[in-house]
């Protein structure tokens, strides 16, 4: 149980002097990536490599009767073809998550098919072309079952059940109720709204892929994944191979965004094939597969009711019901952890004294849901922001004033929410005011610019939020932990070789590690060598997700550096015939205070530690390295008996705003100006932080206006390529103005907080608010994304207060 008292500070035990941190440091990753020398999973070449292709379900809901692969096996060049029974020794996914229904999926389907895209069989041939040729000869017999394509259908009386043994289609159901909330709402005045966010796909530019080889008694698996150690543990469990016999390597990854945090069936099947065939096997996902078999996200219906103070508009009680459509639920962590974060996020950034937030996850015959950058916060902030704006419209108060009533002051920190969320620090009010100061002149300018254009309306929207960073893993995959680790080894030449459990998925992890290590040891950054993504080399960690990188890197690197520094000082002092206390670390070495000539370098120390160990002091052993773990305080993993949890070690904050243009004749919405502010505490690399904001905001804009994963009434996916899933181009995304505040988190290493996801949290909220702002006097209120031209026109036609989903 959290408290609202300040916890202990993270004291690294030495004075950390930022030199590279906060400065402009160009990324070292670019050296390879700019010249085409990156190595992504599809670039891996091994002698004798053969290639797999999967046969996937064409039915959204069916009972598999038979899979006839005889003709496939006879096809020239085919080394193997099999369905479930042909791959013995692959266990089902365990029932890891005790707060949801048990879903123990078999990697290859063994009975029920619950979404188009379910892996049914696999064939291995010389290359993908031939594997696809062969698989065309497969014959699959299924008995079709009635499909369930919406939460309404799933919860209807006598609805077909995806898992009969559940007795319902609820994967998770956490109702919440509070008497005071009910009382205040019954008393009124009340505002309510129903908001709907659509299904989206994280869609990194690189699809998934797995290469596996069994050699020298060990299974090596390369995967485009976010968490090598977690994958290793999963493969160990499902293939019943000791974890020490498995090595997982994450090569260059072309974006993950959450989609690659899951441990997919292919990541188990391909290793099995490598063992079975005694030669390396690869599978590279194609885009159509990705659209149906990599996780989807975000599809949520949010029903909000709030009681508010008539004079100020301040919300006094909030009752919310979130219903998440999580697809078939068959990929671990399917949407349930996201739902818990969405629940907390509805209220986390607001000073509302009483609330009840119910959340449920409902299964449907769609691709399973999973992690996507923002992880529930975008959905929540989208809904809550519209509701706050609605209070303003109902009362005639200014929108900004109603928002202001709910924002934290610095004196509120740390703020312990009834939900258990512990908002530890931030610049909530200042951030909000700053964003408004940026917005106001922009709106003015655009109104002037477009005043003579017929059919053009200008609108603006804004929001503020908190972002859970360095969060819990919620026990998915059985990992009831959220620690991470780094190792520092000083080489004989004084260079530092650093590895970490935090992975790189394109976000500049290696550069961040180099910056932190160089500053922690006082050495030039060129002397730092970094390796991530290798489960042999890197200490056990949970990888890259949840905006956790900066915090865990800082914590673990500083702790490891402390030990290394202390030992190095003792060696240096011995070499300089001085006492430890007289030495200062910096300028690439160890200096006797006040005596410039008395200096030894890290190279001098490194040489002695490993090569000229006869020069060590008597009581010091050779070697100069340390592995350290960082496990944050304040972070909880389990919901307590009252349903409370503080699921994030530290909460960043931000505010966003935009100006939109709505062409009322065609319904086209264009974002003209976008402002984003984020406070993640001190920044390791400001350029990288900005880049994270830009990319995340762009994904949020994509969700607000363009992307939509659709299914037809038979459960057939309609968004199976980039022709029908409209990821925005450079022409659709505006210049993104990013601003920063740096409020340190007192209990975090270096006061850091995370930033990777923050940008996604605002766009749906502010763009929706802006379109409503532009059109509400015409009777249009937007409550659903994406805000397509067709929907805008439909709303204008209706021209009255629409509740509920609009047309197409």
């Amino acid at each position: 149980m959290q408290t609202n008292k300040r916890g202990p500070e993270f004291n690294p035990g030495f004075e950390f002097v930022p030199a590279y941190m906060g400065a402009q440091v160009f990324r070292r990753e670019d050296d390879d990536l700019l010249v085409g020398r990156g190595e992504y999973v599809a670039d891996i070449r091994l002698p004798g490599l053969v290639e797999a292709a999967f046969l996937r379900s064409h039915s959204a809901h069916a009972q598999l009767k038979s899979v006839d692969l005889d003709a496939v096996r006879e096809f020239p060049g085919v080394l193997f073809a099999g369905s479930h029974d042909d791959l013995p020794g692959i266990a089902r996914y365990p029932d890891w998550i005790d707060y949801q229904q048990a879903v123990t999926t078999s990697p290859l389907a063994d009975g029920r098919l619950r979404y188009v895209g379910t892996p049914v069989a696999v064939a291995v041939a010389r290359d993908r072309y031939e594997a696809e040729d062969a698989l065309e000869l497969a014959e699959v017999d299924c008995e079709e079952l009635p499909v369930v394509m919406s939460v309404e259908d799933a919860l209807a009386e006598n609805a077909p059940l995806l898992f009969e043994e559940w007795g319902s289609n609820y994967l998770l159901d956490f109702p919440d109720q509070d008497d005071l909330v009910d009382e205040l709402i019954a008393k009124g005045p009340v505002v309510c709204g129903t908001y709907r966010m659509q299904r989206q796909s994280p869609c990194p530019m690189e699809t998934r892929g797995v290469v596996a080889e069994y050699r020298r008694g060990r299974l090596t698996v390369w995967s485009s994944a976010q968490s090598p150690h977690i994958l290793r543990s999963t493969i160990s469990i499902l293939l019943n191979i000791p974890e020490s016999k498995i090595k997982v390597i994450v090569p260059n990854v072309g974006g993950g965004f959450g989609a690659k945090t899951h441990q997919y069936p292919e990541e188990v099947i391909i290793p099995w094939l490598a063992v079975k065939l005694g030669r390396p096997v690869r599978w590279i996902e194609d885009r159509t597969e990705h659209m149906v078999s990599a996780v989807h996200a975000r599809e949520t219906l949010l029903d909000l009711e709030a009681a508010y103070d008539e004079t100020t508009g301040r919300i006094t009680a909030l009752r919310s019901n979130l219903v998440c459509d999580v697809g078939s639920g068959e990929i671990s962590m399917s949407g349930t952890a996201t739902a818990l974060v969405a629940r907390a996020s509805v209220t986390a950034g607001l000073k509302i004294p009483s609330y009840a937030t119910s959340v449920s996850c409902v299964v449907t015959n769609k691709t399973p849901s999973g992690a996507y950058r923002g992880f529930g916060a975008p959905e929540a902030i989208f809904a809550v922001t519209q509701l706050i704006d609605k209070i303003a419209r109902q009362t005639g108060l200014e929108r900004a004033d109603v928002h202001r009533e709910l924002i934290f002051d610095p004196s509120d920190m740390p703020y312990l929410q009834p939900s258990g969320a512990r908002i530890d620090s931030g610049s909530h009010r200042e951030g909000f005011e700053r964003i408004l100061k940026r917005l106001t002149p922009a709106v003015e300018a655009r109104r002037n610019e477009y005043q003579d254009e017929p059919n053009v309306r200008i609108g603006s929207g804004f929001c503020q939020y908190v972002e859970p960073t360095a969060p819990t893993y919620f026990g998915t995959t059985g990992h009831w932990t959220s620690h991470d680790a780094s190792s520092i080894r000083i080489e004989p030449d004084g260079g530092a070789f650093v590895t970490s459990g935090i992975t790189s998925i394109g976000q500049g992890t290696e550069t961040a590690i180099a910056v932190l290590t160089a500053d922690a040891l006082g050495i030039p950054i060129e002397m730092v060598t970094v390796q991530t993504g290798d489960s042999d080399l890197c200490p056990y960690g949970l990888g890259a997700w949840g905006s956790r990188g900066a915090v865990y890197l800082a914590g673990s690197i500083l702790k490891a550096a402390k030990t290394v520094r202390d030992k190095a000082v003792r060696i240096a002092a011995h070499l300089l015939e001085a006492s430890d206390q007289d030495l200062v670390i910096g300028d690439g070495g160890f200096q006797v205070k006040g005596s410039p000539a008395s200096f030894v370098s890290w190279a001098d120390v490194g040489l002695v530690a490993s090569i000229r160990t006869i020069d060590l002091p008597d009581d010091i052993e050779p070697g100069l390295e340390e592995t350290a773990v960082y496990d944050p305080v304040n972070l909880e993993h389990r919901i307590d008996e009252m349903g409370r949890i503080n699921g994030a070690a530290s909460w960043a904050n931000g505010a966003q705003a935009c100006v939109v243009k709505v062409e009322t004749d065609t319904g086209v919405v264009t974002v003209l100006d976008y402002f984003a502010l984020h406070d993640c505490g001190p920044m390791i690399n400001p350029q990288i932080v900005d880049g994270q904001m830009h990319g995340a905001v762009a994904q949020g804009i994509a969700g607000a206006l363009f992307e939509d994963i659709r299914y037809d009434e038979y459960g057939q996916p309609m968004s199976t390529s980039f022709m029908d899933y409209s990821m925005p181009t450079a022409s659709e995304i505006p210049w993104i103005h990013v601003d920063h505040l740096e409020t340190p988190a007192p209990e975090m290493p270096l006061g850091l907080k995370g930033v990777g996801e923050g940008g996604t949290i605002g766009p749906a909220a502010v763009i929706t608010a802006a379109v409503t702002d532009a059109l509400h006097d015409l009777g249009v209120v937007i409550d659903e994304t994406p805000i397509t031209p067709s929907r805008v026109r439909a709303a204008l036609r209706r021209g009255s207060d629409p509740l509920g989903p609009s047309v197409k």
Partner: protein
Amino acid sequence: MTSVGSTSNVERPRKSTSEIEVTVNGVREHLVVSNRKLLSDVLRDDLGLTGTHVGCEHGVCGACTVIVDDLAVRSCLMFAVQADGSTVTTVEGLAQDGKWSSMQTAFNEHHGLQCGFCTAGFLMTLSKAEPADYETDAEIRELLSGNLCRCTGYHNIVVAVKAAWGRGATE
């Protein structure tokens, strides 16, 4: 994705391979390729030039963009046999003697790439763009609209392009 029970490919004898000569990054290559093998796959598999990436195989994402006979094209929408007699440049052919082009330098200095998967496609498209044809930001963005990026939000790519072309970094 595969379909179930469709026409087999094995019934008819066919001439399904061809010999081609193609100059890639200045090197004359003589190859025997399957007719159906896409140029993207031949560059990557047969020539080991894995800098060209495959993001969609239907011509939308632009990650596979290379230069064929001086024009930026989607290598996933060409069969390698169509490149017989042609000159091809990939991202590996951009740097000269290990020295980055000014665009590559600008991408590094302005953080115009994150995961790097789409980067080669952007660089190749830009390698044939005449700055004078793209005066405004909107025109630059339209030039870039044939290459998708999921990491950068395009922001720093636009900044990098303007920097490489000697223009200011503001909006």
